[in-house]
């Protein structure tokens, strides 16, 4: 048994999303649809101390595992987050989320005149890295948006 004192309730099976940028946990919960999840036990730590980032958030979800699409959603909100899969109280997998070059069906185009806002089409965005800045370019209307401007479906 690990005697490490946990600030956030320890789970036996499920997912731990760690190293979430400080104060972004609620946003992560929202984009994953977990803020309305009535089935799983979810615990959360906000503004915990982090050696690497100064402050970080942590989310622990019991008996729930994430899909690749959910990894991508987390990456858009908090690009440095890590996802740990917990089985029988031990970490069985560790993933560092990564912003994909092409993002399908996750971002809603902010342009009200874009075809993706009028027809039932999966949105497609291209991730653009320009020095330290990240922008998302809509494949259909060809407009680029700063990450603060986009919302997640």
């Amino acid at each position, binding site marked *: 048994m690990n005697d490490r004192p946990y600030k956030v309730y320890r789970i036996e099976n499920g997912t731990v999303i760690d190293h979430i940028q400080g104060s972004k946990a609620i946003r992560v919960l929202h984009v994953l649809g977990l803020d309305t999840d009535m089935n799983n036990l979810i615990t959360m730590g906000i503004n915990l101390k982090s050696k690497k980032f100064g402050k970080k958030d942590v989310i622990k979800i019991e008996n729930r595992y994430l899909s690749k699409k959910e990894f991508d959603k987390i990456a858009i909100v908090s690009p440095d987050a890590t996802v740990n899969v917990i089985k029988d109280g031990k970490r069985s997998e560790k993933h560092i989320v990564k912003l994909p070059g092409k993002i399908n069906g996750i971002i809603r185009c902010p*342009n009200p*005149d*874009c*075809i*993706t806002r*009028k*027809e039932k*089409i999966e949105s497609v965005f291209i991730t653009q890295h*320009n020095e330290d800045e990240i922008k998302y370019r*809509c*494949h*259909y*209307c*060809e*407009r*680029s948006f700063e990450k603060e401007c986009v919302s997640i479906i």
Partner: protein
Amino acid sequence: MDFNMKHIISINDFQREEIDYILDQSKKMEELPQKDKIELFKGKVMASLFFEPSTRTKDSFISACLKMGGNHVGFSDTSSTSLKKGETFADTIRMYEKYSDILVIRHSIEGAARYASEILSIPVINGGDGANQHPTQTLLDLYSIKKSKGSIDNNNILIAGDLKYGRTVHSLSLALSLFDNINLTFVSPPSLRMPDEITEMLRNRGVSFSIYDNLEEAVRDNDIIYMTRIQRERFPNGA
């Protein structure tokens, strides 16, 4: 160069070599005798779907189609189509796909032509999608520059008017960035300046450009002056 089943959706999809090839082919077409021209599209049908008003683009496509011996179907006013009865955009264009060999589309919704090219199995030409792209106008503008100046490279080009909402100025500026030693001057009222994303792309591609509010101050040693009208129909409040 193989253009079989290649769509013309955005000037951003083209490399310089492809643009050069199209302009060379255009010159050959212009010089081709009418008796040979009329054989090129014989027995073929072009669907001309103009969901938004147009004079020059629509009729220049129809004229080209007829001069090459083809026929055309389509509409220039959606009030006389099944769209008024609630038919979806996708269903309308899929129906025209069965009637025709090539589809030309203009729509006020940005990305409509790109979407059409992805769901249809015939070539699609974008005749303008909202404030986004108008690639065939750009190819025509490039052809006019080449014809009048002998080359597109090494020109000082002044672009004036509504640079915010005018789709042709966006497409043309980006297309010109593929050519050598191009110097651009943008002139517009402050509220209608070239969007940041276009100037950012030009900067990233190393294109030299300057921005002015006043035409008299801006005009100097220009090889080409490109004027556009105010795109009042695209203003958010319609004023």
